[in-house]
């Protein structure tokens, strides 16, 4: 009895109502410092250095200067933006339409469909990429087989500069549409039923209701998904890495992939860090712009 009382007394010294919050957040703070703050600072320093033959020295803005004169960087940037501009609108449109469908009282087995559409977002990346490789293989792929049944010549999905981009867009859309759909679904359920009732009393049809009530009410959700998708696309790496390796002839090279190649294939960690920082700045500016443009009207 005596000893446990002592222990309790001792314990009370460490964990007081005052210290408890700090103890609780300590693990998160430590992990954050270690795995976020330290690498962020470290890579900033790296980006101002060059390494030759194992010797690292300060190089000022050399890496950045090189970056702005690097045609491949611009090509990667261009590819990324082409994918961004085409893919994100397609995906968000699909996501909204699916969300409205899922929200309909007429649809049966809604739970099943919701899970089915969300599934791609949580599928193991490698499994997903391999399935796409099998589907899109020029010679043995099922997509080309299906096309051949209707008399279309095989398409070199992953080996043609144009179709490789298309393949990436299809793959990314498949993976993230369901994810965005779920966000829209949540947004739809936040729209008051009264609005629809009032509208139908005024004689508005379903389509009119969609454009005059649903879409305007979803605006903040649109902004949210748009910013998230923009950031996600700018960081696009997995699909080009596994499906096309950035090829053919760099037609699917994205900024993140270029960063990876420089760091882990060419061992140019300094240059890779510079690319990372430029990417961060691009993302920050774009996100700010989107917030600004959308926020003003509100």
């Amino acid at each position, binding site marked *: 009895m005596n000893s446990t009382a002592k222990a309790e007394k001792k314990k009370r*010294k*460490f964990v007081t109502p*005052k*210290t408890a919050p*700090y*103890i609780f957040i*300590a693990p998160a703070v*430590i992990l954050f*410092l*270690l795995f976020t703050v*330290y690498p962020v600072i470290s890579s900033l320093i790296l980006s101002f250095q060059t*390494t030759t*033959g*194992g010797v690292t020295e300060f190089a000022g803005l050399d890496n950045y200067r090189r970056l702005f004169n*690097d*045609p*491949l960087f611009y090509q990667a940037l261009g590819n990324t933006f082409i994918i961004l501009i085409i893919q994100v609108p397609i995906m968000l449109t699909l996501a909204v339409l699916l969300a409205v469908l899922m929200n309909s009282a007429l649809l049966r087995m809604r739970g099943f469909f919701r899970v089915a559409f969300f599934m791609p977002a949580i599928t193991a990346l490698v499994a997903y990429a391999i399935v796409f*490789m099998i589907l899109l*293989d*020029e*010679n*043995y792929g099922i997509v080309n087989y299906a096309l051949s049944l209707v008399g279309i010549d095989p398409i*070199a999905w*992953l*080996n*043609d*500069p144009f179709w490789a981009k298309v393949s990436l867009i299809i793959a990314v859309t498949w993976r993230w549409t369901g994810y965005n759909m779920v966000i829209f679904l949540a947004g739809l359920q936040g729209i008051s039923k009264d609005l629809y009732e009032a509208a139908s009393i005024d004689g508005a049809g379903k389509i009119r209701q969609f454009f005059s009530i649903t879409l305007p009410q979803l605006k903040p959700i649109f902004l949210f998904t748009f910013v998230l998708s923009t950031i996600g696309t700018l960081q696009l790496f997995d699909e080009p890495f596994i499906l*096309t*390796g950035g*090829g*053919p*002839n*760099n037609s699917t090279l994205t900024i993140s992939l270029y960063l990876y*190649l420089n760091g*882990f*294939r*060419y*061992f*140019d*960690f300094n240059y890779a860090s510079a690319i990372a920082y430029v990417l961060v700045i691009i993302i920050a500016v774009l996100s700010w712009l989107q917030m600004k443009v959308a926020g003003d009207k509100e």
Partner: protein
Amino acid sequence: MKAWKKALAGTLSLAVLAACGGNDNNTEETPAGNDNGDNNGGELSGEIEVWGWNVAAASMELAIEGFNEIHPDVEVNVQDIGRLDLYDRLTVGLAAGGAGLPDVVLVETDRIDNYMSEFPEGFLNLSEYGFDQYEDKFAQAKINSMKNADGDFIAAPWDFGPAAVFYNVEIFEEAGVNPDDIETYDDYIEAGIQIHEATESQLLPIDISQDDAQFRMMMNQQGTYYFDEDGNIDIASDEAVLAMEKIKEMRENDLIANVDGWDGTVTATVNGRVATVPFGVWYAGTIMDQAPEQEGNWDIFPLPALEEGGNRAANLGGSDLAVIGATENPDAAYAFVEYFTTETDPQMAALEEYGMFPSLLETYEHETFDEESEFFNNSAIFRTFAEISEDVPFANYTSDYARAFRYSADAQASALLQDAEPADALREAAERIANESGRDINE
């Protein structure tokens, strides 16, 4: 209050220690030049970890028993890690000063220069352990890639990849083509056209946008590579342009099956979509493994020459062993590398079991080389490969190999898929490499 501060400070300092720990143990601490490699048997002890991939890892596994007869107290632990995963982990580990790495790693010959120059302290200097005494036992073309700028051995040469054309006997017979008549690439293309007309098969598989193996072999045959012996960029040389033009000619005649990666190559090989596969000797094992039912249906002939009477020998691939500088047991690690690369037994076991072709010259006298292989149409293919390996010109891979490889594949895609002129595409590749590496382009 105090206690949580202490706890926080403790954790943080631990973390900081962990973060910089890697830097402390990579450089000065490895003992230099102990006893010139003549380690007395049985004295060594401890455990060493070895990283490799698929059949190469399996070959090292085979060698453990023999090694333990000499050094019974050393426990060797071979890990089979995927090839590309191994490189990623090796790169990160070396960048972290050797943290998290094993004692011995397998590295492909064409990648060694890159690692060596970027992480000069990352690997043990094998010359200081006496590896120089084996210099004459290996083909010179192989040895040159193992040394750093000071002429010291950083890696120990292991398997070699003399190249030849694997061909499908049945398809050749059906098309009425005699492989002995193929001496130049023009003959090869002509045969390809004949085969393509007579059968459904194309001539050879190439992963156009990602791999330029055919192009590299053709450059190597002509005594050039991405870089010349002085390290200048040679990818836009006349020889290289000629090679790419031949490849483009094959494409224009619909002789190239554009495949996706390794799996695509293997599939095209075993299902008869292609009649030939020009590749390194190690492909023999793959065909036997993937298409056992095609026994007797394969054979080889040397690579065609680019011009009448030209060199028909080239190398593709091959790998070597290096000891990580941060190893805690350098003597045992070196002993294993020495045993595995300079003794005949482990080499022959690897050849017989897995078709890993040794670069240790004395093994070529072994009778296994003259054995006729039932799988390969009763030819003594390993004898042919041994003869080829004697004539392989040196290829200077350099520290910029990875970049050059990538831009070369880009040039190939541009010439074959986007119809650029080979000379222009290669010129662009040369300029990109020059921009990023600071090397000069050969005029």
